[in-house]
């Protein structure tokens, strides 16, 4: 029987890194006790990022070098899904231009959602015909001057789970479910209500988790000393080391929680840490991943020789290296809807999205799929009945032509300070795709000037938020290729 496990992996961390010192500086008048957390930086999404867009980027990274038509199902784990009732993973499917025949599932409701989704995917893999794309992304809305504001970070991760030439073999899992209320959030609540940190640490992070580990290690029949990487996605200091000591896992196996340069990415954090571990691991290493949230998940994996053959990708290492320091705490509060600002009359433009036209144009609007004329080879976006080729009036000749993964170059550009834009100025311009296709598009993640000729890569982002009807609208933007 073929091995079950992880076939591929990827991650996404937003480019902006808010300095924790800036958060502390603004809040120290009220909460001087936060000083101990005011070191390093946390990843923050731009105004146009959320758990869906981060999941899409993580998914793209995970599918590097993989034929997307082979994916059979996907899941998106997050406690910060933009839609309470509209399949969030379904939007990710459209953006990733996966087959219409995939099964899709949103997984939510606990900080353990990410590891639980991965556990289920691994356990189900042997019964599935095609690989499952297991995605997790989190952008927690945190109350200003809270611990969570400083310790959280925005990120996403993706793991392709299946059978065959796996890079990490699934060795087993163990779970414990107990209604341990360290925090909660009911619908309508803006922020988590968090209980006392000392109790959470002593009774939850340490006692409950140690019990799960002891039971799990026994059930899995693994020698704790043989574990090479012990992944505990809990940012509270020293938790992982304490657990290692209590359970016989080597201290050197304890993985970095990525707290210094990223922060804790909620229910996605375990998968983010797993991707980071897989990037660093050599073949034949045992990885024990833990998930915590009203209980515990344990997932045991062992890397294989296939790991060394995996195509290069951004991963956590690449994403963390591609950061930009940000001191602007106020801008971030505005982007996360925590402070209202006077947006001006130009923000009053009302653009209702008819479901009818979104349905007709879903491939273009969500997947950046254009058209290629089967007679002349002319590529265009969006598709139309009559080809744009001026030398040949050709009708009804276009086939789908996905553009999202094709590099493009800037033809025209401006920085528009007049348009309403949540992160002014609005950079946009015209781009030409390598091999054909041209469009006017917003630019994202701009730092400094963008010159004509600059190489761009497409990124999936929020296009606009219809605040009257509560609709988040998505589309693609062009970001400098880095």
């Amino acid at each position, binding site marked *: 029987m073929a091995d079950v496990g992880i076939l591929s992996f990827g991650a996404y961390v937003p480019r902006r890194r808010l300095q924790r010192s800036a958060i502390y500086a603004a809040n120290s008048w009220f909460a001087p006790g936060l000083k101990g957390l005011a070191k390093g930086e946390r990843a923050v999404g731009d105004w146009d990022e959320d758990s869906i867009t981060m999941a899409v980027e993580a998914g793209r990274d995970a599918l590097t070098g993989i034929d997307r038509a082979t994916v059979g199902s996907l899941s998106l784990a997050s406690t910060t899904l933009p839609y309470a009732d509209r399949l969030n993973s379904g939007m990710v499917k459209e953006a990733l231009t996966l087959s219409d025949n995939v099964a899709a599932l949103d997984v939510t409701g606990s900080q353990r959602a990410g590891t639980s989704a991965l556990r289920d995917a691994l356990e189900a893999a042997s019964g599935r015909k095609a690989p499952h794309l297991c995605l997790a992304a989190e952008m927690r809305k945190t109350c200003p001057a809270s611990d969570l504001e400083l310790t959280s970070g925005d990120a996403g991760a993706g793991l392709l789970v299946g059978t065959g030439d796996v890079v990490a073999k699934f060795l087993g899992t163990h779970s414990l479910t107990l209604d341990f209320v360290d925090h909660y959030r009911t619908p309508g609540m803006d922020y988590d209500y968090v209980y006392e940190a000392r109790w959470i640490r002593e009774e939850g992070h340490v006692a409950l988790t140690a019990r799960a580990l002891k039971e799990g290690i026994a059930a899995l029949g693994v020698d704790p000393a043989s574990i090479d990487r012990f992944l505990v996605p809990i940012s509270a200091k020293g938790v992982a080391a304490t657990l290692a000591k209590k359970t016989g896992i080597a201290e050197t196996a304890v993985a970095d929680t990525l707290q210094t340069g990223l922060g804790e990415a909620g229910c996605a954090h375990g998968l983010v840490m797993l991707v980071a571990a897989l990037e660093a691991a050599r073949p034949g290493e045992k990885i024990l991943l833990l998930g915590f949230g009203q209980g515990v998940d344990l997932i045991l994996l062992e890397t294989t020789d296939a790991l060394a053959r995996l195509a290069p990708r951004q991963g956590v290492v690449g994403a963390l290296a591609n950061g930009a320091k940000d001191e602007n705490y106020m801008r971030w509060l505005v982007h996360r809807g925590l402070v209202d600002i006077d947006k001006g009359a130009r923000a009053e433009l009302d653009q209702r*999205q008819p479901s009818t036209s979104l349905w007709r144009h879903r491939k273009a609007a969500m997947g950046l799929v254009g058209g290629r004329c089967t007679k002349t080879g002319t590529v*265009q976006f969006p598709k139309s009945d009559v080809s744009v080729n001026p030398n040949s009036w050709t009708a009804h000749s276009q086939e789908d032509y996905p553009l999202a993964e094709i590099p493009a170059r800037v033809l025209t550009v*401006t920085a528009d300070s007049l348009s309403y834009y949540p992160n002014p100025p609005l950079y946009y311009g015209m781009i030409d795709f390598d091999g*054909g296709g041209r469009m006017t598009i917003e630019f994202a993640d701009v730092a400094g000037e963008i*010159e004509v000729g600059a190489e761009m890569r497409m990124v999936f982002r929020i296009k606009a938020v219809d605040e009257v009807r509560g609709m988040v609208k998505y589309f693609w933007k062009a970001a400098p290729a880095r």
Partner: protein
Amino acid sequence: MARGIKDKVAILGMGCSRFGERWDMDADNLVVEAFEEAIADAGIDVSQIDAAWLGVGFDAMNIGPSGLPLSIALRLPNIGVTKVENYCASGTESFRGAVYAVASGAADIALAVGVEKLKDTGYGGLPVRSRGTTLDMVGVTGSAPGNFAQVASAYRAAHNVSKDDLKRAIAHVSVKSHANGAKNPKAHLRKAVDMDTVLNAPMIAEPLGLYDCCGVSDGAAVAIVTTPEIARALGKKDLVTIKALQIAASNGWELQHAGGWNGSYFHPTRVAAQRAYDEAGITAPRDQLSLTEVHDCFSITELVTMEDLFLSDEGNAWRDVLNGDFDADGRIPCQIDGGLKCFGHPIGASGLRMIYENYLQLLGRAGDRQRKTPPSLALSHNLGGMPSQNVSAIAIVGLADA
């Protein structure tokens, strides 16, 4: 090519409201102001008008749909009144309707009206609006300066022009237009400005600063047209006739066809200009045209348009501009009335306002700003949309014997 309309239609009368922040007026009041001047100039009675066209750009801020608001404002005698909209070229579009009606023989006397009440939007610049549900999903809702600034980046790249050189050249465009507008009692902005003021103004859309953008105004303009025979029968001696009237529309090639258009010019303007010159029998525009009024919504638009009208060599307009070629005393003055820069751009009115100035200049009626060398042929260029997708309208008018 079609035979064209050269000299088949004459301007019987024109009128233009004062442009500006007309807080005290609705669109129909502005129409009446321009119409009273035009009908007095024409020397006819309202009952003699056979058909009318109304050009308006923005429905919501103005007078609502249909030709009815014009029919009601002027109490026209139940004639056919058609409202036209073709982006910022709506003014010339209304003129085209009236001129074609006369040229076809369907009407003896026709009326073209353009009006816009931009100052009811509550903010500077043009109103933001939908461009259709599909484009709202996959397009960019940039501002007008943002859209036109795009051409500056591509122009610099295509012709290897430094940032500073282009910025100075477009600043000269605005300094020149302000100097001209200062002499025009109907202009909105009547203050001369110097280079430093223009260069140091706040950035609106890189590289366009505040003074690279035209004003935002209310205004109306009116033309009454007829056949040369009827004009003469009505006692007109010095006739201004239509030499050419061309509109060219983008078909998506610039916006969608990779590797084609390079972003640095206005493709439909080149097409419309060549057709207009052919229609007017103009073979050497640099020698034959006396004046131009072009669509200087932004300084960069005017600069690039000099090349698109074949009045500057490609890649050289920035030098010609700095050389003063298009100043009021230059080789072919551009915006001798102050242009959109000083009039502002009440969309529906602008195309007709340009023709109004050319008409006055041709008849020697332009007062302080009258071109010294008596003009014989004058071109107006009215552009709607954005560099990558636009409607370009060109009207050439001239003395009947030119």
